[in-house]
């Protein structure tokens, strides 16, 4: 056990990489989620179809296969990605596809009356989405987003297959050196479990922040009521 602890530095480096991968992956996934997700509810076929194909493709293929393909097959087509970039790209695109479905169905499940009320007030589609639909859909999206984020975290060990030096890759290396199989693998399980809990906590905090029935903080109330001469 103590032999393993000698490699502390390696574990910290690996953890750093894992966290970085997770954050960047989630960032890309969110960008994809909202762009592809909104394309999916567009009135125009030319936007809806690519979105559908994108989502079905990434949900229908294995993330592991995608990782390998991005790193080993793309060079044959002239695109050489470094392993970290390939990892972030695949993680983001893959989980982004799931997140896009969440965005699309959350907005679609809003009562039609909200859209109609906004149309009656002369709001254009972009404005409707921005001010009325998305703010109401976000609270519904967050719990499912939380699951997607944790799934992304749980997918990061796969990048060790393409030699990204994340926590798993380094831990496997230490195992080869020390043969402390049980300690290392059980330790990995616990480490990822804890990281997952942290993500779940962050999601829970986000859910509270974006909840619909929030009352404005008493100190902010004058700002929220807006406009001069508000003390009527």
């Amino acid at each position: 056990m103590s032999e393993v602890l000698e490699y502390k530095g390696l574990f910290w480096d690996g953890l750093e990489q894992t966290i970085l991968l997770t954050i960047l992956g989630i960032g890309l996934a969110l960008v994809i989620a909202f762009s592809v997700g909104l394309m999916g509810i567009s009135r125009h076929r030319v936007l809806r179809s690519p979105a559908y194909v994108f989502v079905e493709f990434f949900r229908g293929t294995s993330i592991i296969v995608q990782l390998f393909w991005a790193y080993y097959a793309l060079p044959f087509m002239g695109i050489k990605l470094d392993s970290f970039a390939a990892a972030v790209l695949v993680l983001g695109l893959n989980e982004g596809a799931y997140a896009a479905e969440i965005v699309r169905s959350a907005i679609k499940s809003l009562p039609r009356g909200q859209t109609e009320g906004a149309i009656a007030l002369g709001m254009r589609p972009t404005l409707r989405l921005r001010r009325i639909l998305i703010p109401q859909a976000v609270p519904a999206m967050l719990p499912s987003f939380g699951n997607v984020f944790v799934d992304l975290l749980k997918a990061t060990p796969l990048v060790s297959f393409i030699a990204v030096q994340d926590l798993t890759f380094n831990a496997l290396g230490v195992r080869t050196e020390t043969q402390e199989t049980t300690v290392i693998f059980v330790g990995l399980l616990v480490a990822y479990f804890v990281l997952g809990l942290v993500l779940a906590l962050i999601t829970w905090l986000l859910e509270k922040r974006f909840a619909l029935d929030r009352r404005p903080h008493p100190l902010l109330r004058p700002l929220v009521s807006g406009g001069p001469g508000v003390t009527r």
Partner: protein
Amino acid sequence: MRWDADYAADIFPKLLDGLWLTIQVSLLGMALALLLGLVIAVVRYAKIPLLSQVLTGYVLFVRGTPLLIQAFTIYYVLPEYGITLSLFTSGVLILGVNYSAYTAEVYRAGIEAVPRGQWEASTALNLPAWRTWTRIVLPQGIATIIPVLGNYQIQMFKDSAILYGIGMTELLGTARELGVAGRSLEPLTIAGILYLVISYPAAILTRRLERRYAPTH
């Protein structure tokens, strides 16, 4: 893009072998997951002291940790304690154990989704408990969870690629072997297409099942 069609035709049969192994391990893995998940669900529903809590913790832990690490643990750690399993058996166990944590939840949700009124009507008609379960509750509960279980089977089919990490020559493993020996473009692309060719129609079928059996979704 330089696609070597001859090479592709050459390796295709080998990839099909890999696909067959993938299908086998996913089907058996799902069978194990269904069985194990049912046991877990029943124990937790019956609220057997200590065992229920242990299983709840087990489910949480399995769901909260990566499948790959679980695969390593089962394949490399168990032998340290005297349990050595074949590659294929390990594969089935890895997939089955992981997914049982999800199927257990599905069983629970399915039972709870049966409206309270059904239980109350059964009581009002003086049906005995076992009849209530077998004729009223389970048939309705199962109808709603079939689509979800269908989705899990498809997911497991794709997740089986992880077994490449413990050296199994399923579809991905075969593709990698070929890639290392020769070119990577054709094996990986064909493998990707094969995964898609199986999972996309299966997903459509499951969605249709969902519309038929759980139309409230």
